[in-house]
C-alpha cells in the first residue's frame, strides 16, 4: 500500500512537471514558473518552511551573519541530494558553508514526515534565487534507509 502511494505521488509529480512545462506557453508568466515543480507543491513547502526553518534561515533564505547560513545557491542546497536530505535527518554543526563558519546548530528535523521533508527541500531548491530539481519522497526514504 505504502509503495503504491509513493508510486502514485511520483506519477503525480512527474505529470505535474509535464503540465508545468507546457503551461508557460499558454499563459504569460507573471512570475517565472519553476521547472518541474507544481505551485501546490511549492505552497506546501513554503508553509513547512515558515513553521520550521524561517526563524533561523529567515524569510528571504538569506540566513543570519555568522550564525545561520543562507540557503541561497549554497553547495548543500544545490548539490548532492542525499547529503542535503541528510541535513534534515541528522542536523548539522561545525561545518563550513561555502567558506564561512556558522556558530549555531542546525537541529535535526525528524519531527517532519518524509513528505514534508521532500516538500520543504523542493521549496528551498526552487526559491531565494535557486533553481533545481524537486526532492521526492522516494529520495528521502532512500536517504533514510542508507542512514540506517
Amino acid at each position, binding site marked *: 500500500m505504502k509503495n503504491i502511494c509513493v508510486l502514485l505521488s511520483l506519477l503525480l509529480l512527474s505529470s505535474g512537471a509535464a503540465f508545468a512545462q507546457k503551461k508557460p506557453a499558454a499563459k504569460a508568466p507573471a512570475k517565472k514558473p519553476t521547472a518541474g515543480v507544481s505551485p501546490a507543491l511549492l505552497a506546501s513547502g513554503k508553509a513547512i518552511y515558515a513553521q*520550521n526553518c524561517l526563524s533561523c534561515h529567515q*524569510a528571504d533564505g538569506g540566513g543570519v551573519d555568522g550564525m545561520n547560513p543562507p540557503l541561497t545557491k549554497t553547495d548543500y542546497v544545490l548539490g548532492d541530494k542525499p547529503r542535503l536530505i541528510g541535513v534534515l535527518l541528522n*542536523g548539522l554543526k*561545525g561545518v563550513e558553508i561555502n567558506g564561512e*563558519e556558522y*556558530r549555531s*546548530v542546525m537541529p535535526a528535523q525528524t519531527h517532519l514526515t518524509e513528505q514534508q521533508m521532500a516538500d520543504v527541500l523542493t521549496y528551498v531548491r526552487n526559491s531565494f534565487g535557486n533553481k533545481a530539481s524537486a526532492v521526492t519522497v522516494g529520495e528521502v526514504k532512500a536517504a533514510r534507509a542508507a542512514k540506517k
Partner: protein
Amino acid sequence: MKINPTRPLLLAAALASSFGLYSLTSRPSAVTADPNNAGLKLPAGFGALVVAETGARARHIAVTPQGTIYVKLNRAKDGKGILELKHTAGGKATVTGGFGSYGGTGIYAKGNYLYASSDEDVYRYKLDAKGEVTNPAQPEKIVSGLLNRGEHESKSIVLDNAGNLYVNVGAYSNSCQEKDREKGSMGRPGCPILDSAGGIWQFRADKVGQTYGTGTRFATGLRNVVGLDWNAQSNQLFVMQHGRDQLHDIFPALYDTKQSAELPAECLYALTKGANAGWPYLYYDPVKKQKILAPEYGGDGKKLADAKYLDPAAAYPAHTAPDGLLFYTGTMFPAKYRNGAFIAFHGSWNRAPEPQKGYYVVFQPFQNGKPSGPWEVFADNFAGSAEKVASGRADHKPCGLAQGPDGSLYVSDDKAGTIYRIVYNQK
C-alpha cells in the same frame, strides 16, 4: 620584581606631556562631525563621524588614554586579529598596524596593558607611555583552554579596580535541551553545561598560565554575555545577557510567533560573587515582570521560576542582542550621561516572522550605581532604514563600545567594519 623608584616618575612625566600634546591636537573642537552624522540619528547637540572603515568584522574596541584605538576582529584579516588605529585630522583615524593572528571578540585597555581574547584564551600586551603595544608578537597568555563548542563562543573581558579579570564563557546551547534547538526536546536535568560554561569566570589580570582550575566561577546561570563592564560607583560587575531563542519553534503549543518574538527580555544583571541568574531553568517576561519557569523544565508560560534566582536590574526588548556595555565616565557629554550605561544592541534575528528590532545604541540612566528611570535609544539607524531594520538586512551592526580620552563614544560595527565616534558639540 624590583621596581626602579624613578620609573613611575618618568612614566608620569611622559604621560603628562603626551596628555598635553593630545589636548592641543585633539580638543573636542578639533573633532568634526560628518555632515550627515555618519548616517546616525542622535539626540540634539550630538554629532558623529566615521573614524575609519576597517572592512572587517570589528567586534570590541578599546581606546588607550593617549587615544590609540585597538579593534578586535572576529576573524583575523591578512593574518591580523587586532587592528591598531591612530588619529589623523578632524578626529578621524587610520589603520597603522595589526597583530595577533587569532580571531575573537574581547579587547580591553587598563593601566599599562591591553587585554585581548580569542574564543579560548586571554592574552595581554604591554602598553608604553604613548599607549602603544610594545610586544605585539609576544603577548603573555594569561588564561587558556576556555570552552569553545561553536555556539556562544566569544569570550568578552573586563577588569575591575583590584587586579581581577572577568571572562564570559557562554553556554554552548540555547536552553540546555537534550538535543539543542530540537522541537520538543526537554532540558537536561541539573544542566551539566553550567560546570564549565554559562557564566562569568574570574582570574587574576597579572598571572600567566591560568586555566579553569585556577580561576573562580564568579557567577552562573548566564546563557551568554557579550557586553559587560565594571561599574566603579557600585564597585560591581554588570553584564548584559543574550536571552534564549525559539520558544515558538520548540514549544509551538505554548507560544505563538508573536509571543516568541517578545519573549524573553534581554536583561541587565548586577553581579556579586556567587550570583545565579537562573539559565536554563527560567526566562524573564518583561510584561509580567516575572521570572518564568522554562518550558524545557516543566514550564507552561505561566508557572513562576524559583524565586532564589537573581532578578534582572533592567530589561530590554527580546532578541535584540546586546553586544556592548559601557559605563560613561567622561565629561564631554551632558551631566545626565555621567555614570550611566550605553548598550550596543547588535540587532535581532530571532523575532522572525515578526519584524526585526535593535541595531541601535541605548542609554540607560543610572543613579548611585543602579539603573534609574527608563532607557532611551541614543544612537539609531545603524541599519540604514526602517525596512532594513524590519528585514534584519542591516548595513551596520553595532557591537563594541569604548570611551575616548576626551569623552567621545566610539562604536564598532561587525557587519561592515565601520568605526564610529559620537561627540557632543553644544557648549
